[in-house]
C-alpha cells in the first residue's frame, strides 16, 4: 500500500482540476506519450563494469546498461543493495571506468578524456553523498569554497561565491561553523552547497538522504526539486527509498544484478510495475481486510489504477461489470505526475454469484471486469 498526501503541482494540478470539473471529459482513455525533446545530456551505451579486486573474485557489477538522461531531468535509480547503483553513477564523473561500452556526458566519452579534460568535466558535475564527506578540519564556508579554491580561484572570490551557495541552501547562518557541530540535514545542505558552488549542469546524488530522518529527507528533497526548477539542473539520483523517487523523479530505472530491468516515467513504473524486483521494492502487499471479508465468502478483485487513463478508474464501468452487490472495500488512488496511481479492492458476495445459477459466473464476472479495467486480478486470499 502506498501512502498519499502529496498534492500535485503545476501542470499536473491544472490537469487534475480540469479532470475534476463537472464537464464530462471525452478525451480518449489512452494518451499518446509526448516525446521528450530536451537535449540528451548523459548517455550509457552498452555499459558493463567488472571489478577485478586483487586476489579476489571478479565481480560483474554492471552488464549491458543502456539509457539516456535529458537536460533538466530528475532521473532516479533504484535497486536492492549491491545491484550496481553506485557503480553506475560513479561512471558518470569518471570515478570508475567502464570495462565495456561507453558513457557519454555532453557528447564526450568520459573514459577517453585526458586528465585535464576529466578535471574540467568533474568541475561541471556536482556530487553529493550519503556520508556527506565534508572536511572536519574546515568551516562550512571553506568546505563549500574548496572546489573553487581547487580550481585556482582566490580566497575572497571563493568565499563570496560560497556565501551565495550557502544562501541558496538556507545555511548562511552556519558559514563559520565546523561540520562536527551541524545536524545531518545541515551537513547535507552544506554538501549540496559545495556541489552547486561551481554552478554545474549535472548533479549526482548517491543515497544523499539515506542517513536522514523522514522529515529532514523531505526538506532536502524539496531543496533539490527547487534547485532543479530554478537552475534547470539535471539530477541523477540513487536511492533505495521509494518515497524519494516518487517525490522528485521524472523517470526511474530499476536495476537488479547489474542490469536495468525496468525504466520509464514514474507514473508508469510505480503505477504498473512489470518486474518482480520493482514490485518487491514498492512492496505491493495485500491490505489487511477484516476476517468477514477475507475469510473467502466473498470474491475479492484487485484493480490496479495504472495511469494510462489520466481521468482515473471508471467506477460505473466497474460496478456494471460486476453487477449488484459489488462493494469497494479498500482502496487508494493518488496522483503521480498528474496521473492516477493506486489500487482498489472490490468484493462480490459469493451468494450473488451463486444466485445467477450459471456454471462459470465468477469467471464471467472477472472477464467483464477485465474488459473495462485491464489491470484487474482475482485475489483468492487476502490476509
Amino acid at each position, binding site marked *: 500500500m502506498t501512502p498519499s498526501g502529496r498534492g500535485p503541482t503545476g501542470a499536473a494540478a491544472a490537469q487534475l482540476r480540469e479532470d475534476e470539473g463537472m464537464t464530462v471529459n471525452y478525451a480518449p482513455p489512452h494518451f499518446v506519450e509526448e516525446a521528450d525533446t530536451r537535449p540528451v545530456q548523459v548517455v550509457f551505451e552498452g555499459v558493463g563494469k567488472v571489478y577485478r579486486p586483487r586476489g579476489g573474485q571478479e565481480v560483474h557489477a554492471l552488464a549491458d546498461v543502456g539509457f539516456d538522461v535529458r537536460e533538466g531531468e530528475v532521473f532516479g535509480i533504484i535497486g536492492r543493495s549491491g545491484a550496481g547503483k553506485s557503480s553506475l553513477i560513479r561512471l558518470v564523473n569518471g*570515478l570508475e571506468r567502464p570495462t565495456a561500452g561507453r558513457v557519454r556526458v555532453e557528447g564526450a566519452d568520459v573514459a577517453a578524456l585526458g*586528465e585535464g579534460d576529466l578535471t574540467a568535466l*568533474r568541475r561541471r558535475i556536482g556530487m553529493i553523498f550519503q556520508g556527506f*564527506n565534508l572536511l572536519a*578540519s574546515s568551516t562550512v564556508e571553506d568546505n563549500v569554497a574548496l*572546489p573553487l579554491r581547487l580550481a585556482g580561484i582566490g580566497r575572497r572570490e571563493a568565499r563570496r561565491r560560497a556565501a551565495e551557495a550557502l544562501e541558496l541552501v538556507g545555511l548562511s547562518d552556519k558559514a563559520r561553523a565546523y*561540520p562536527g557541530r551541524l545536524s545531518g540535514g545541515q551537513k547535507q545542505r552544506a554538501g549540496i552547497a559545495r556541489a552547486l558552488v561551481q554552478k554545474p549542469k549535472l548533479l549526482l546524488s548517491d543515497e544523499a538522504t539515506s542517513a536522514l530522518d523522514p522529515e529532514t529527507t523531505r526538506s532536502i528533497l524539496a531543496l533539490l526539486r527547487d534547485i532543479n526548477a530554478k537552475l534547470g539542473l539535471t539530477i541523477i539520483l540513487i536511492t533505495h527509498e521509494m518515497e524519494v523517487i516518487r517525490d522528485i523523479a521524472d523517470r526511474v530505472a530499476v536495476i537488479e544484478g547489474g542490469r536495468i530491468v525496468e525504466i520509464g516515467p514514474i507514473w508508469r513504473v510505480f503505477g504498473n510495475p512489470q518486474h518482480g524486483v520493482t514490485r518487491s521494492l514498492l512492496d505491493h502487499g495485500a491490505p489487511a481486510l477484516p476476517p468477514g471479508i477475507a475469510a473467502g465468502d466473498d470474491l475479492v478483485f484487485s484493480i490496479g489504477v495504472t495511469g494510462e487513463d489520466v481521468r482515473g478508474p471508471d467506477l460505473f464501468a466497474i460496478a456494471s461489470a460486476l453487477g449488484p452487490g459489488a462493494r469497494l472495500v479498500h482502496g487508494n488512488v493518488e496522483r503521480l505526475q498528474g496521473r492516477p496511481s493506486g489500487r482498489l479492492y472490490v468484493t462480490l458476495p459469493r451468494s450473488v454469484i451463486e444466485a445467477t445459477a450459471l456454471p462459470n459466473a465468477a469467471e464471467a464476472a472477472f472477464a467483464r471486469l477485465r474488459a473495462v479495467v485491464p489491470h484487474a486480478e482475482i485475489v483468492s486470499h487476502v490476509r
Partner: protein
Amino acid sequence: MSGNLLDLFWIAMWETAVMVGISGAIALAAGLPIGLILVATAPGGIFPAKWINWPLGGLVNAIRSTPFIILLVAMIPLTRLIVGTTIGLWAAIVPLSIAAAPFFARLAEVALREVHPGLIEAARAMGATRAQILRHVLLPEALPGIVGSFTITIVSMINSSAMAGAVGAGGLGDLAMRFGYQRFDDAVMAQVVVVLIAVVTLVQWSGDALVRRLDRR
C-alpha cells in the same frame, strides 16, 4: 644540590633540548614526506606504486627494528661523513634523526590512512588533482593525528637521547649514568629521573592540548 651540580643539570637539560629539538625537526621534515609517500603509493592509494612503496617500507622497517644503541654505533662512519666528527652533540643528532624519522613516518602514515576515503572520493569528484588531495584533504584532515604522532616521537627521542652519552653528547641521561651509575650517587639519578618525568609530562601535555585545539570533529 650544590651549585656545581645544579649547573651540570642546566647544561645537561640544554644538551638534551638541543639534541631532541634539532633531531626532532629533522625527523619531522623527513618523516612526514615519507609517511605521505607510503600512504600515497600504497596499493589503492592515490598514486599506487609498488616499486616505491616496497623498498621505502622495507627501509623504514629495517631502521625501526634496529636497537638504537646499535644504530648509534653503526652510524659512526655516516656521522663522520655528515658532521665531520664522531663525538659530541652533533654526532648524536645524526643517529637520533635517522632513528626518529622512520618511527614518526609510520605513525604519520597511520594518521593519514585514517582519513575517511569518502573525503578523497569527494575531492576527486570535484576535480582535485592528486597533489591537491594531499595538500587540501589528507594533510589538514590528518593534522591532529600527525601532531599526536609527533608528540609520541619527541617523547621516544628524549628516551633515546639518554644513550647518546655513549658518543659523548651529554644530556640528562648521560648525567644520570655518570653520577648515578658510575659513582653510585642514587640521589642524582633519582633527580634526573624526576626531571625527565616532568619534561615528558610537559611535552605530552602540550601535544595533547594542541591536538584538542586542532581537532574539530
